[in-house]
């Protein structure tokens, strides 16, 4: 009887704040449709409380598996326990949670933000021979990617005495803010020294590139630019020589996610953590990679 019933998966997404996120959502939806799984999708609009509400509502609806990308790391203990009591397995995607009892979820599929920061740092150290005066465009204050990427990045450049961050300001992960903040960086007295830019995501880097062009600074040449995500626009910019490097953060985790769901329902054992396959792309690879970018 159970076999005839369609599998129902509840998925709570953080929001739709960027093209990256939309691609992430689409990948999951498309994969669910492909496998004939009924997906209950809930958008939390960046709010943890909305997400908790959605998770509890999934319990009330009696879904088979719950998956979600947590808005923040902490604060999931109670609701996860409630889900566990209801006997529903949980899969985390994209971001991890901090819980005392890791039996509260089955597996985590996603990126390691700290590692992304490290990769960006390593690339910059190599490209600049360990000597760089860096401006940093930080993500939204308090958000996990902003904090972790900064952490990874500073960890790496801390090993190079010739590298230091002179400007650091939040660009809220948006192009408009990235541009506005970069403009003010470029007008500050120490602007001339800046040799590199680290942006926590591609959108801010793309905004900053516009600001540089308007100020008569050559992006990618006068100032080395490294950012994270690897969206389509970033590859275009790299192909045009305006961006130097992007650290990929792959949103297309739909297949991996539903592989995990299938495995759980088939009562197979899963590793606690599944890393998403990600790369670091430089200008030389851009033109070749560009056609493969769907988001």
């Amino acid at each position, binding site marked *: 009887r159970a076999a005839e019933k369609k599998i129902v998966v509840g998925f709570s997404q953080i929001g739709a704040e960027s093209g990256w996120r939309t691609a992430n959502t689409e990948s999951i939806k498309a994969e669910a449709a492909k496998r004939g799984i009924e997906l*209950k999708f809930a958008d939390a609009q960046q*709010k943890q409380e909305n997400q908790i509400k959605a998770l509890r509502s999934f319990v009330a609806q009696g879904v088979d598996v719950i998956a979600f990308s947590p808005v*923040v790391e902490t604060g999931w203990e109670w609701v996860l326990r409630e889900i566990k009591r209801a006997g529903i397995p949980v899969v985390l995607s994209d971001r991890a949670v901090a819980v005392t009892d890791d039996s509260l979820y089955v597996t985590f599929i996603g990126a390691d933000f700290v590692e992304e920061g490290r990769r960006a740092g390593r690339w910059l150290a190599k490209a600049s021979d360990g000597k760089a005066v860096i401006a940093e465009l930080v993500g939204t204050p308090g958000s996990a990617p902003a904090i972790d990427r900064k952490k990874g990045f500073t960890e790496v450049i801390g090993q190079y005495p010739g590298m230091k961050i002179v400007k650091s300001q939040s660009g809220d992960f948006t192009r408009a803010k990235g541009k506005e903040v970069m403009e003010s960086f470029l007008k500050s007295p120490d602007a001339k020294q800046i040799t590199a830019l680290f942006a926590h995501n591609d959108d801010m880097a793309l905004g900053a590139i516009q600001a540089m062009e308007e100020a008569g600074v050559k992006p990618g040449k006068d100032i080395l630019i490294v950012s994270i995500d690897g969206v389509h626009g970033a590859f275009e910019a790299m192909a045009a020589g305006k961006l130097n490097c992007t650290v990929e953060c792959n949103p297309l985790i739909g297949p991996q996610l539903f592989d995990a769901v299938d495995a759980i329902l088939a009562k197979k054992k899963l590793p606690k953590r599944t890393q998403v396959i990600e790369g670091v792309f430089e200008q030389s690879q851009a033109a070749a990679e560009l056609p493969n970018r769907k988001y």
Partner: protein
Amino acid sequence: MKFPLASRYLPLLATALVLAGLYVAGCVSFDNFSSLRVAVNLIGDNGFLGIAAIGATFVILSGGIDLSVGAVVAFTSILIASLVEDHSVNPLAAIAAALIVGSLFGAAMGSLIQWFELPPFLVTLAGMFLARGVGFMIHPQSHGIQNDFFLQTVSERLSLPLNNRVSFPFTGTCFVVMFVLATFVAHYTRFGRYIYALGGDEQSARLMGLPVARTKVLIYALSGFCSALAGVVYTFYTQSGDPASCVGLELDAIAAVVIGGTLLSGGVGFLAGTVMGVLILGLIQTLITFKGDLNSWWTRIVAGMLVFLFILLQNVISSASKRLRG
């Protein structure tokens, strides 16, 4: 003999009717919607919003506005988390401290509004920025609480089992208790009536010899207290503190108050209306989650349309019943 229900209760009745209609519509369209768990979730999940909205109701009834709500909730949550985790303060003491700080913060804003005759909008906006910034100073990111009081006592022991699967969470209990207390304050204390008087006509209230200054400061203190309590409930709910949380919560609170029939210009409204407003916003969210096939943008559009539909029905019902009564 007059109809016992005075016409001032009409909007309330209309709101209740539409709320019930919305609920029934949900039950008809979705399996499991009528389950006890959904109803319990509705109250428990919206507990902190409800408490914040109760505070906002007092302020709006008095003709003011408080934009600091969301920031104070976030500030309180991170304050408690930091006190309990980093400074090993007793959880109850931390909660008490947070409530006191919240009330004082509100009272300070109230004093500025009263003594310097500053517009509440600006003062509470400044308060919002301040609370947000100080929250980040305490701890720059979300901070989990491992203390047993939060992990065990609040979430397990203090929730009331209703049947063997569903229990009424403590956050919901806080909401209900706060609602009862607030209703008592609003309708059975002089202070409560002064709030209405202040919102009805501040000039007249002063000329009638009411203690306008004291009342005003107290109202903002009360709102600060409610925000802080909402923050406490939020920490119960998430068992963590987060300085970045609850952005725009004040708008949800104000929306709930206004949907509940309270006039933004002050003087007219009921706490019961506010509670219904909160439940309506929650119900709309629940309906969308149960629907489950809307993408992010359709979620917003449908949410907006549901609010619109609700307001429209509410208007139609209350004006029709007014006409019926002549």
